[in-house]
């Protein structure tokens, strides 16, 4: 800065608001932005389709159309195998909406407008995260309801069952952070849509969600068996149906924490730079 050559106008030195007020306003902003997202979703039939109708269709499709041809060795048959998988898959797949919405708001200039307002910069991302959590929770509960209607039962007690649902939601939120980064970095709604096919499809479909990994060719098994969505699904199956919990619990925790640790800073950085 070449301040030496500038005129002698002395800018005002205005202290920022107190921490307590900033905190109160920050919380209020996150609540407002969450409400805003929810309202947008309710108005958007496309969104209802993606978060409710599509997962339900998947559940029914695999339960009644493909399921008969997929041999599984779990007590309760294919529907018992399917439900933890389809819950995790839908939660993760649904996070794709995060990328599209962020790219769209960025492209339209909505986010620039927010950034020119006296609002904590983290509020936009946090508001979306809270709204996404609610959305994923609704999706998960609807699928569970459909699952119960088509013969699925928790075989391992209610508490592990609830933990399984929570784990599904946590998986969805974790993948949402990847999605947020993609949306903010790519910045273009169309490009995000096409690019999404490249990462979210393999991640959610090349997994143990619908079929046993052992039915895939060897080269694909190497990926499918070790990728995070499969690891979490195995843990969810063990919670819902009974089985050894410890190994997959550790692996799940490490994967989820690792993804959050990498993609939250990346998303925040992309948000700061996007203008």
């Amino acid at each position, binding site marked *: 800065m070449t301040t030496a050559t*500038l005129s002698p106008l002395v*800018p*005002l030195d205005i202290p*920022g608001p107190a921490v307590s007020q900033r905190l109160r306003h920050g919380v209020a902003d996150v609540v407002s932005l969450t409400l805003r997202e929810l309202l947008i979703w309710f108005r958007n039939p496309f969104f209802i389709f993606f978060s409710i109708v599509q997962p339900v269709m998947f559940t029914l499709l695999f339960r009644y159309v493909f399921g008969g041809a997929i041999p599984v060795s779990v007590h309760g048959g294919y529907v018992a195998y399917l439900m933890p998988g389809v819950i995790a898959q839908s939660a993760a797949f649904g996070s794709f909406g995060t990328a599209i919405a962020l790219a769209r708001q960025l492209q339209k*200039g*909505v986010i620039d407008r927010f950034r*020119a307002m006296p*609002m904590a910069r983290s509020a936009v991302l946090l508001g979306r995260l809270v709204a996404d959590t609610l959305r994923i929770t609704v999706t998960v509960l609807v699928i569970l309801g459909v699952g119960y209607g088509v013969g699925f039962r928790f075989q391992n007690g209610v508490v592990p069952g609830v933990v399984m649902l929570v784990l599904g939601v946590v998986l969805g939120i974790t993948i949402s952070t990847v999605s947020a980064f993609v949306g903010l970095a790519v910045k273009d709604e169309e490009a995000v849509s096409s690019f999404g096919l490249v990462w979210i499809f393999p991640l959610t479909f090349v997994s143990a969600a619908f079929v046993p990994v052992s039915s895939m060719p060897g080269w694909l098994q190497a990926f499918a068996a070790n990728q995070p969505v499969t690891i979490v699904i195995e843990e969810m199956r063990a919670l819902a149906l009974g089985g050894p919990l410890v190994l997959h619990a550790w692996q799940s925790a490490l994967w989820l924490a690792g993804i959050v640790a990498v993609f939250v800073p990346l998303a925040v950085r992309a948000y700061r730079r996007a*203008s």
Partner: protein
Amino acid sequence: MTTAQRWEGPAIFVEDVYKSFGDVRALCGIDLVVERGKVLGLLGPNGAGKTTAVKILTTLLQPDRGRALVEGRDVVRSPAAVREIIGLAGQSAAIQEELTGRENLEIMGRLYHLDPDTRHRRAAELLERFDLLDAADRPTKGYSGGMQRRLDLALSLVSHPEVLFLDEPTTGLDPRSRLGMWEVIRELVARGATLLLTTQYLEEADELADEIVVIDHGKVIAAGTSEELKNRIGGDVLEFTVDERDRLGEVAETLRALSEAEPTIDAETGTLTLRVGEGGSRALVETVRRLDALGVHTEGLGVRRPSLDDVFLALTGHGAEEPADSPHGRRRAGRRA
């Protein structure tokens, strides 16, 4: 919160600001001063640096060099303090199309931490003032372009900003909606807002701004009131249209001696423009005589005061409005509206 400090300087103060994006130099040493309660028209073609200047003043971008103050608050050192007192509107960006006009305003009120009563009242008041009451509870997706711009402007006013930035508020609007937008902006100005308005339209700056700064390629190339800028050209402009386009060159040649500068030919419309200085009527008589001798048929022959379009042409050597994104009628609407 800030009552202890008063700022005696100008509402907007920009000094020697530079901004580059990679190799592209968007701003190359811009100076701007806007006194409180005044309207500055920042005029220039697409890519001149107008939006970059607005983004720096609204804390969305940081300048590479130089200084920008809004009501005495430095945009780099106290961006939060700047955001407290500004409003930003423009090309309907803040509107969420799934939501109704009222919902958009209500959420904006929430984000400015207004209490529920104030929020509802403010939304109702702005809807009425911007003639949106009838459409208030319909999703904004169905609003016309003009309605969306009005709502966008209303959204930027929820917090009673001291300084308002309007980035091309009428770009892409049809002439009638643009006139409506002008009305709304004029009323704002009458209430004493400090306004920085960017525009590609000369007559928009002419209509709304107290002072005009013309920028091109990131530099200020002229500044002053619309009158001052017109006086720069000095004297009158003589203009007419020739039906026989192929004779335009011949006609220009014949009349060159009457013009203080090279005659301007618009081959597309067949319009010839001469800068005839103070001797407007003498030049008119002489022109008629010479055209008659040539046997050329003309239309709309007359002498007028220079428009900002003439000024822009004289300053930059090219027109103000980029042909790339100019829909039919803009030019005409622009000139005569």
